[in-house]
């Protein structure tokens, strides 16, 4: 890895450490107590899902316009990372919802639209996996990537349009954010840290796709990884301690992020190795 290649992960690592420290040092909420700390991982995951799908949209339009293979790789990589973050946001929301709302899941418009978004983009990845010819794959997925984005604003605005159990946005609302300033600082710090991690993941995924394309072997179908969806087990007694929930949420978040990154790196190393073999 070049110096510039190592700089981004290093900065992201520092930012994540700072974000984690900020999240743990921020004051507890007057109602939720320590549970509010789950916000510092749930909100960034959800926000990055939106960002990822927006990048997919822009790259898809870019492909339809200029037909550069790079745009298709970015669209695909971003959609996969977006599906990962959507899954993470749902899992973390579930972990946050159980102790606060009292349920893992409910048929709230925000939750339902988010789950639908997850499945729409899972369909996008399945479509890519099913198509072999790179140009045909790029064309089909670019069209679907544009159509699928309709879902994203609906998810974001669902809490405003409809009366939901899920709270409306705290930061992205007109006027002063309705949040304690030290908590806001921790949230923004984590947003920045997660965005940097997102950039690392996206870059790694794009590089993996480029390496696979370069390898151009038949067995190299760009199989997408389904994100680590943690399915809460039913009948499992909820731990009473608020800290237990926070620890659970954070280990899911960082475990999934680290696992996903490790998986991408490992795949790229293997592709490189195979490329070396075939040479």
């Amino acid at each position: 890895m070049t110096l510039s290649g190592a700089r981004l992960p290093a900065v992201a690592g520092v930012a994540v450490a700072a974000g984690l420290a900020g999240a743990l040092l921020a004051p507890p909420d007057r109602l939720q107590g320590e549970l509010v700390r789950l916000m510092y991982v749930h909100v960034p995951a959800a926000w990055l899902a939106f960002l990822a799908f927006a990048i997919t949209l822009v790259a898809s339009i870019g492909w339809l316009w200029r037909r550069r293979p790079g745009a298709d790789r970015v669209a695909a990589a971003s959609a996969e990372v977006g599906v990962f973050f959507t899954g993470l946001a749902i899992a973390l929301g579930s972990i946050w919802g159980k102790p606060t709302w009292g349920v893992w899941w409910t048929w709230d418009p925000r939750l339902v639209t988010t789950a639908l978004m997850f499945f729409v983009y899972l369909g996008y990845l399945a479509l890519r996996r099913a198509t072999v010819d790179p140009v045909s794959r790029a064309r089909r997925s670019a069209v679907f990537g544009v159509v699928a984005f309709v879902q994203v604003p609906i998810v974001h605005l669902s809490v405003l349009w409809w009366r939901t159990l899920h709270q409306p946005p705290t930061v992205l609302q007109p006027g002063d954010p309705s949040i304690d300033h030290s908590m806001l600082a921790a949230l923004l710090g984590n947003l920045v840290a997660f965005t940097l991690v997102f950039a690392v993941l996206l870059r790694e995924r794009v590089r993996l796709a480029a390496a696979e394309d370069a390898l151009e072997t038949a067995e190299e179908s760009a199989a997408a990884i389904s994100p680590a969806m943690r399915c809460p087990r039913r009948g499992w007694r909820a731990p009473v301690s608020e800290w237990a929930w926070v620890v659970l949420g954070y280990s899911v978040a960082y475990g999934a992020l680290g696992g996903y990154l490790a998986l991408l790196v490992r795949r790229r190393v293997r592709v490189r190795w195979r490329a070396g073999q075939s040479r």
Partner: protein
Amino acid sequence: MLLPLHQPPAPAPRQAGVARLDGVAVNVERTPVLRGVDLTVLAGEVLGVIGANGSGKSTLLRVLATLLVPASGTGHVLGATLGTTACSAVRSRVALVGHTPALYPHLTLAENLHVVARLTGVAAATVDGALETVGLAGAAGRRADRCSQGMQRRAELARALAAAPSLLLLDEPHAGLDADSRGLIDLVTDRVRRAGGACVAVSHDRDRLHTLADRVVEVVDGQVRATREVPA
């Protein structure tokens, strides 16, 4: 058969040939199938293309049908440059008799032909005449999936006859046809030729192709290798 034959010979085409390919390369599913093909199809000729299985003959036909866009090189078909929107305007003047029959299995042979005729604005009487020409008038009411391969082939030839194309592309035209029906191919190509159009037939059967074609070229490994005039 009383088919409109466009009696006066067509005016000389604007370009020297009906179709012309210059250095055309095509990839199908990542694999290069054609690389640097130069080919001219002249008005009024039947061009034979010979080649082994997998040499790229069928892909060449689809390029000439404007269905595939070259990855590099330029091509013109009936005055339209390949890869431009002008192709959609000339596409309906090209007919392709592929080597898998393009028939809807649930429709009868007559329905199959009439659907296409209505889609392109060809008169129903022309279709009926063409069916009679190929000797299918009696079997036209049979479902396509219950017809023999030879009958399906003849129905496709009837469709090409009714469409009266300026460029007729034949993929393995003799496959599945019995000895009596092979004359139909000459009949159809003759009609197209007399109307000022051109035909391209691909086959791996050297002897049959030489009797059908005015000129034969060979596709080897994705390139047009040899051009040999057929002795008259």
